[in-house]
């Protein structure tokens, strides 16, 4: 753990930190299955089966995905818009993950949908021989009823599916389209609204 950015003293624990999963074992399994379902059906919007209390800059779905998947073996990068002591204390306390300022070395990255792609330009996309050494990007949005839609096709999609997260920085659409060109390298994206999640793995073809 990086001591410089650790603002959590033992006395603060319990006062500043919100509760995590009610039932860590079964809630983590439920959330994982939801993410697995989303990742194997790109573009399908799936209701998050539980809610958890989360810091204001991290919505409930985004928080529960991190609670289910992050731990002391993973490094999380928070974008400028989501980075604050509430979020970092929450993640450190519940998952034991380390947080980094350097986007080049992270396993999970958290972005607000309004932020631009410049923030995530440095995320690791893996190498040709080890494409799995890439970051998973969680983008916090409000809902999935955007007027702008992308049509997805590829593995996990029977014919086509639609992706319509909102609000989303207009430059992110182009970034997502480019992301497919690096396959098998690339970033896997999980969009998280307060109540639903939707995934865009690197394997999906995208038409805007």
């Amino acid at each position: 753990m990086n001591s410089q950015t650790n603002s959590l003293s033992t006395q603060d624990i319990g006062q500043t930190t919100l509760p995590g999963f009610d039932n860590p074992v079964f809630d983590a399994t439920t959330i994982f299955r939801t993410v697995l379902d989303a990742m194997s059906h790109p573009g399908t919007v799936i209701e998050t089966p539980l809610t958890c209390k989360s810091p204001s800059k991290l919505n409930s779905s985004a928080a529960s995905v991190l609670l289910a998947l992050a731990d002391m073996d993973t490094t999380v990068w928070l974008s400028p818009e989501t980075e604050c002591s509430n979020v970092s204390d929450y993640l450190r306390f519940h998952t034991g993950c380390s947080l980094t300022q350097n986007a080049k070395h992270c396993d999970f990255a958290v972005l607000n949908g309004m932020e631009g792609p410049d923030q995530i330009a440095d995320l690791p996309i893996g190498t040709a021989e080890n494409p799995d050494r890439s970051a998973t990007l969680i983008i916090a949005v409000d809902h999935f009823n955007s007027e702008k839609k992308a049509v997805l096709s590829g593995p996990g999609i029977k014919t086509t599916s639609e992706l319509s997260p909102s609000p989303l920085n207009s430059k992110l659409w182009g970034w997502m389209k480019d992301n497919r060109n690096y396959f098998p390298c690339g970033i896997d994206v999980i969009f998280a609204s307060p109540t639903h999640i939707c995934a865009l793995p690197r394997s999906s073809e995208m038409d805007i």
Partner: protein
Amino acid sequence: MSQNTTASSYNYAYLDEQTKRMIRRALLKAVAIPGYQVPFAGREMPMPYGWGTGGVQVTATVIGPSDTLKVIDQGSDDTTNAVSIRQFFEKTADINTTEKTKDATVIQTRHRIPEETLTEGQILVYQVPIPEPLRFLEPRETETRKMHALEEYGLMHVKLYEDISRHGHIATTYAYPVKVNGRYVMDPSPTPKFDNPKMDNCAALQLFGAGREKRIYAIPPYTKVQSLDFEDHPFEIQSWDQDCALCGSTDSFLDEVILDDKGNRMFVCSDSDYCQSRQDNSMSPSVEHTLSQASQMQSVNSEASK
């Protein structure tokens, strides 16, 4: 679980939570890169390597209390491996088990895909002994990794070509290499090539776990899975001259069962649930005798083939 004191002293589904998270992260990467083998820190399981330690770890990571589990070993629900893995999860994960393919949400399999078409929402977990399709052609991991990176699969085609030059046809009958979504060549585990077409555009999610080799890979639903072949030697599946002696099926994978020492033999479905449900639907008294005799022989035979 509550009645069994030894099982309750383990975490739910045997694996500790940190191990599950590690495997879960690997599974998500595997789904995002169809056919690519993701390394994972495989754990020692309370069974020997070769008995499905990879499949068991994937199943333990995926299942929750609301799941219904089916376990098959070469198509059959009642061989040793299938029974012991089913009991393992009944004990450690307190879940419902079934022998009916359509009732299961998670199916762990050794060397077969059920005959009944799998549906959306089901998860098929394969036990994989050697995940690298190029391993017998190139023993060095550094090299096979490079070959996958460069999409250099010429060697595999040479191997299939040598089959043709030696035997007149592609003689590979199981672990027949496939190309997933037009990118990665993948070993479908030692399933008979008869099952390869079922992998293509399958509605269910297919997860592969290799415990000894510590690799996880996946095929998402509705993904193109193409068996490698040549224009003049197209991919073909096995066929039999006979129908299943028990249920009369003409289109399922058949096991040869030796009946006596005088050369008598019969062919029966390898998928025990498929065969049984067909028999239940059209039971006639005349077949009952052969049936009890044959099912006895079938279990003896599948034990011996381990």
